[in-house]
């Protein structure tokens, strides 16, 4: 059975273009209280010109957004093999529990006594994440992985400063995520790139050569972005610690470790968790992010506030009295709805279920790799963890590139994998199937990729012209990046 077939797609104009003067979604009843003079009340703040908002009926708006939603790719529609993003299925029980009124309707400023259940959940989620990662304390405040990472490096900086020993450099392997150097740079650190070996791994000798008394930290992702377990991690952490530095663990690939190994045991001092990757909360537009940050005891004084504490009599309260804290990262207590979903996921699977998730994620990635090896170049041999990296090298003579293969996958109803990342592999395709996929689903995807490779040799032009079955054919991404049109304007000439 094919994964995608013909279908009717709707065109849809912008709301501004559909606007009709005077059209409304609701009719308000006549005013039954005395009218006031808004201009007099508001003074200078009174707006003379009405805002140019689109005027539409309710059904116009509902159809608009429903039509736009049919243009979406989503993990509820099919395999979404975006490497390094862990696009796993989001179980519906998470949604059900997040909608319980005690969670969904809690106000951020409610007195602690009125939200004991929610505080207990936060307290227990912290304990769960600490147990899973082998760290001592966890702040659930950061609103996304990148903010968790920023917080982690801020704590590292605060730690060194508290010892009267500010340092200026952060070491980052060349296979790292782009957020790593960004977090270091935002904290005023210079980035030292550490080359990985020809086997794709970080070697102790390379770390030793770059380590000195001015290095505040090493930032490392394990497994790394090539999907390879950093087997020298223990020795690498020892070298950094011996030089007075700390080790930051990027938690993006935690899905490969659950219940099998713990970053804290490897020697990592601080890491972030992407709840939307590892713990099945919605990604991107599906919901706000959540990027808790966990630390070893030595960094606990610097954690963002507030944390949740439990009294001797079993009552929970906000703990803000932490003089060395790096401060607040969020107006309230983090994106709490996401915390409820992650908690639901962890509790519904339990330790054994989480361990099985990782096993299935690793098995699925290796199964795909074994089916695709030969058709695609595999830059680093050996078995992988939860994702695999291929390249377009074997297609070079046809003129077809990784980008073309990715576009052709869209014609078959698949969201493309991550492409041209990690940067250390030219023409990389980075595939992460996750544990959500069955053998049949993986086989359909592998068959599709093998068909595309066959087509690449028989009819390369067809692949280079993809996508053909989408509502719009290939977009001019270069022009979009060079000359972006970021918002609608009444008159583009203005």
């Amino acid at each position: 059975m094919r994964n995608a077939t013909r279908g009717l797609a709707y065109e849809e104009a912008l709301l501004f273009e559909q606007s009709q003067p005077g059209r409304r979604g609701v009719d308000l009843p006549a005013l039954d209280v005395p009218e006031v003079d808004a201009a007099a009340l508001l003074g200078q703040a009174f707006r003379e010109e009405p805002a140019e908002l689109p005027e539409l009926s309710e059904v116009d708006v509902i159809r608009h957004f429903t039509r736009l939603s049919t243009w979406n790719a989503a993990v509820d529609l099919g395999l979404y093999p975006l490497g390094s993003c862990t696009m796993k299925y989001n179980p519906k029980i998470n949604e059900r529990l997040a909608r319980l009124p005690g969670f969904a309707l809690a106000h951020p400023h409610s007195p602690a006594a009125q939200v004991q259940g929610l505080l207990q959940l936060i307290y227990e989620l912290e304990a769960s994440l600490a147990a899973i990662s082998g760290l001592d304390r966890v702040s659930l405040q950061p609103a996304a992985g990148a903010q968790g990472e920023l917080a982690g490096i801020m704590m590292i900086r605060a730690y060194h400063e508290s010892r009267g020993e500010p340092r200026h450099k952060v070491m980052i392997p060349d296979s790292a995520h782009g957020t790593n150097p960004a977090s270091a740079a935002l904290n005023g650190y210079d980035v030292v790139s550490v080359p990985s070996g020809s086997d794709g791994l970080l070697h102790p000798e390379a770390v030793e050569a770059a380590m000195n008394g001015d290095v505040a930290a090493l930032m490392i992702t394990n497994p790394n972005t090539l999907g390879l377990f950093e087997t020298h991690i223990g020795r690498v952490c020892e070298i950094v610690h011996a030089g007075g530095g700390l080790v930051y663990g990027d938690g993006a690939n935690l899905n490969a470790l659950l219940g099998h190994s713990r970053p804290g045991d490897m020697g990592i001092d601080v890491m972030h968790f992407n709840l939307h990757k590892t713990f099945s909360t919605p990604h991107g537009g599906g919901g706000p992010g959540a990027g808790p940050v966990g630390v070893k005891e030595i960094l606990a004084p610097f954690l963002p506030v507030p944390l949740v504490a439990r009294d001797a009599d079993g009552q929970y309260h906000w703990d803000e009295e932490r003089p060395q804290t790096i401060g607040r990262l969020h107006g309230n207590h983090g994106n709490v709805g996401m915390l409820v979903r992650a908690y639901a996921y962890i509790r519904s699977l339990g330790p054994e279920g989480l361990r099985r998730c990782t096993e299935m994620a690793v098995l699925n990635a290796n199964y795909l790799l074994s089916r695709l090896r030969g058709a695609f170049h595999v830059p680093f041999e050996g078995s992988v963890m939860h994702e695999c990296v291929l390249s377009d090298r074997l297609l070079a003579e046809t003129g077809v590139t990784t980008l073309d293969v990715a576009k052709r996958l869209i014609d078959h109803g698949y969201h493309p994998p991550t492409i041209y990342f990690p940067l250390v592999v030219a023409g990389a395709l980075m595939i992460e199937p996750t544990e959500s996929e069955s053998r049949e689903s993986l086989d359909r995807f592998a068959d599709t990729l093998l068909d595309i490779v066959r087509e690449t040799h028989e009819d390369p032009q067809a692949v280079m012209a993809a996508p053909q079955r989408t509502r719009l054919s290939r977009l001019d991404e270069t022009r979009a990046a060079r000359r972006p049109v970021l918002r609608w304007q009444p008159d583009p000439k203005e």
Partner: protein
Amino acid sequence: MGDYEIPEELRYSREDEWTKSEDGRVTIGVTDYAQQQLGDVVFVELPEVGRSLEKGEPFGVIESVKTVADLYAPLSGEVLEINEALVEAPESVNDDCYGEGWMVVISIADPADQSELLDRAGYLQHIKDRADQDQ
């Protein structure tokens, strides 16, 4: 290995920058190999005039539809001029990397640094070695 235009009269860094030296002023850009590897360039971030560059340190950023890469200073020196036109027309890096696509002009601190740069043959060999290493 693809076909790259590598002019005889320029000198090259191992990080794929070209340099052209005239009376102590050195013009710097990225090579044809680099622009082909990057693909369509969409953004170039350059240092401020007057900043001093340290050989081997990043001094700017080049972004294409595929990737983002640091620009590494092939020589130490002070920035005299930057190519402001690249802000509006980053495509010059693809269209004319040795001409309109130049990036900065620096005054070099130590002319002896230049002896470590590669000539055409040396740079082509470097490209080939790197490709072999990836095999």
